[in-house]
């Protein structure tokens, strides 16, 4: 077994062991209902953290609108589930909802990638940021209803839909989608997390993944080796957006009223996920999962801390970046802790 395979298996193992422990706690009745309510959000934040780490750590492009993809996945899948709630059995409907959410988020990731990813520079950050805000605005002004004649769309108000009496409004502008079936469970969340981990870790260890990382490390050299820079960038970003869409599907099937609010899909939410990724280690997939779980649970458990949470997150973000990336700090760390790291260094050389 190669070293990499072993590392991947350890990651799956951690997730599965954590899942078994939690399930035992639930069965023995040691988990409060408040804690139980945190389990599904924990899994979708872990999933989206993995998605963002693929974009930031492996592809080396900053996206600060990943919650926008989550929003798209959430709304498209909730729309489908609401539409077919009475006509399809639960399991196939939920699976199709996942496929739709993933496909829509992936498609938009692809469309955004076309103008941006052929360029060098920080454009992706600004375009994804703008995209995240726009998608929120557009959905808040979006009305869809269904009646015996079919679907009705409007961008003005629910009255403009002009529906028959038997009509049913599905997306009600800023009021969002109400009454999506609650199909997400902790088990489903863990399965989605395992699948996303499987996809991302196998991508990293494949020929394509090595090409993507080569682009990140030196795109001129990568191009000179014959790697299709734009193509591989598009591939990684689309996969990342699609996984964020899967997180959105989990999200929308766990909440009674789904609205495109800033709390869940705004700039702040995207930054929070960036904090998970940075704290877990940029490029370290396992770290993202662990950091997302711990950082999601901590403020929920320490309620008094909530006013200062964002302040502390921002300071953590700045300090972590300077400690981990500043050339002078790295040099200082090498000088001070050099002796401690000697053994590890020797191993790496060998």
């Amino acid at each position, binding site marked *: 077994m190669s070293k990499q395979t072993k590392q991947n298996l350890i990651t799956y193992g951690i997730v599965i062991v954590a899942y078994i422990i939690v399930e035992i706690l639930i069965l023995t009745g040691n988990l409060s209902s408040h804690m139980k309510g945190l389990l599904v959000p924990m899994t979708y934040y872990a999933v989206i953290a993995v998605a963002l780490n693929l974009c930031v750590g492996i592809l080396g492009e900053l996206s600060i609108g990943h919650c926008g993809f989550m929003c798209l996945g959430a709304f498209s899948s909730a729309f489908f589930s609401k539409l077919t709630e009475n006509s399809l059995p639960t399991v196939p409907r939920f699976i199709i909802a996942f496929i739709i959410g993933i496909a829509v988020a992936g498609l938009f990731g692809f469309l955004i990638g076309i103008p941006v990813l052929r360029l060098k520079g920080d454009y992706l950050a600004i*375009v994804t940021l703008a995209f995240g805000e726009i998608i929120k605005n557009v959905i808040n002004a979006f009305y869809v209803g269904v009646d015996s004649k079919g679907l009705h769309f409007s961008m003005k108000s629910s009255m403009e839909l002009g529906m028959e009496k038997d009509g049913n409004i599905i997306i009600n502008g800023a009021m969002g989608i109400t009454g999506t079936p609650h199909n997400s469970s902790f088990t489903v969340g863990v399965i989605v997390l395992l699948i996303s981990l499987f996809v991302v870790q196998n991508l990293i260890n494949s020929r394509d993944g090595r090409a993507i990382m080569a682009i990140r490390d030196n795109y001129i050299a990568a191009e000179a080796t014959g790697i299709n820079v734009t193509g591989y960038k598009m591939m990684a970003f689309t996969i990342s957006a699609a996984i964020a869409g899967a997180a959105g599907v989990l999200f929308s099937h766990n909440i009674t009223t789904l609205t495109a609010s800033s709390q869940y899909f705004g700039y702040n939410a995207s930054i929070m996920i960036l904090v998970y990724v940075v704290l877990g280690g940029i490029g370290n997939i396992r770290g993202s999962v662990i950091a997302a779980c711990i950082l999601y649970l901590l403020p929920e458990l320490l309620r008094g801390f909530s006013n200062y949470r964002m302040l502390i997150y921002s300071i953590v973000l700045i300090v972590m970046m300077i400690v981990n*990336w500043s050339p002078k700090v790295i040099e200082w760390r090498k000088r001070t802790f050099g002796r401690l790291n000697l053994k590890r260094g020797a191993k790496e050389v060998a």
Partner: protein
Amino acid sequence: MSFLTYLINGLSLGSIYAIIALGYTMVYGIAKMLNFAHGDFIMVGCYIIFSVSSALSGNSAVGIIVAIILCTILGVTTEFVAYRPLRGAASPLAVLITAIGVSYLLENIALLIYGADIKSFSSVIKWEGVSFADGQLKIQGVTIVTIVVSIVILIALQLFINKTKQGQAMLAASEDKGAATLMGINVNRTIALTFAIGSALAAIAGALLCSAYPSLSPYTGAMPGIKAFVAAVLGGIGSIPGAMIGGLVLGIVEILSKTYISSQLSDAIVFGILVIVLLVKPTGILGKVVQEKV
């Protein structure tokens, strides 16, 4: 006549974007980094003017001067504490994420001090404005002052960059930092100076922005900041006249699309422009193509 009024309002909003975009484009040109916190410097400037004017019972002139000084200090300090240590980091993402952290930090400090509720900002310009053609065409004082201030700033900056030694040092440092250092230019000090000018401009832009749109919240600066970046890209990032042109075009497009198309979609239209520019001419209107050497 109403079209002319909208056009002038667009010019005024565009002038504010242009002043913000100047700060972006100068910092991007020289430090090669996107200062995400630039929009939040605007917000900080507005809150300083707000606090000082209410403490001095409505004396906004002092407020503006204090805001310019404090924003300059804030900009230079941010550069020194957060950005300078990351210069030459292995990944360009490091400084970008730090800038997001700074932006987030400023927003949350403002949130803790002033709360999330929207404060009403009293205009710093008391002049009523002028009206033409029997009152059919009214131009507000704030609109005229904004346009004049932006033109003055543009001319002053052009003179500063082309005629003074410090300005030439900026040009040299933006071209090639290594060669500039060999020529005896203190690159660190030059970058700090750029941040100082950019932040002072942000304070001025804040005063004008909140005079025209008098609602102040911790997130006031975020959206204008992003739009000003779009303006800088549209005009060609790194180019000072480009930032001006980009800002004006963007302001006019925003106001006209708000009026004639849809107010909810105007942001989407503005960012649509960014996407089109990136597709057609990524270097912007006045930008130049720089070939990267190995």
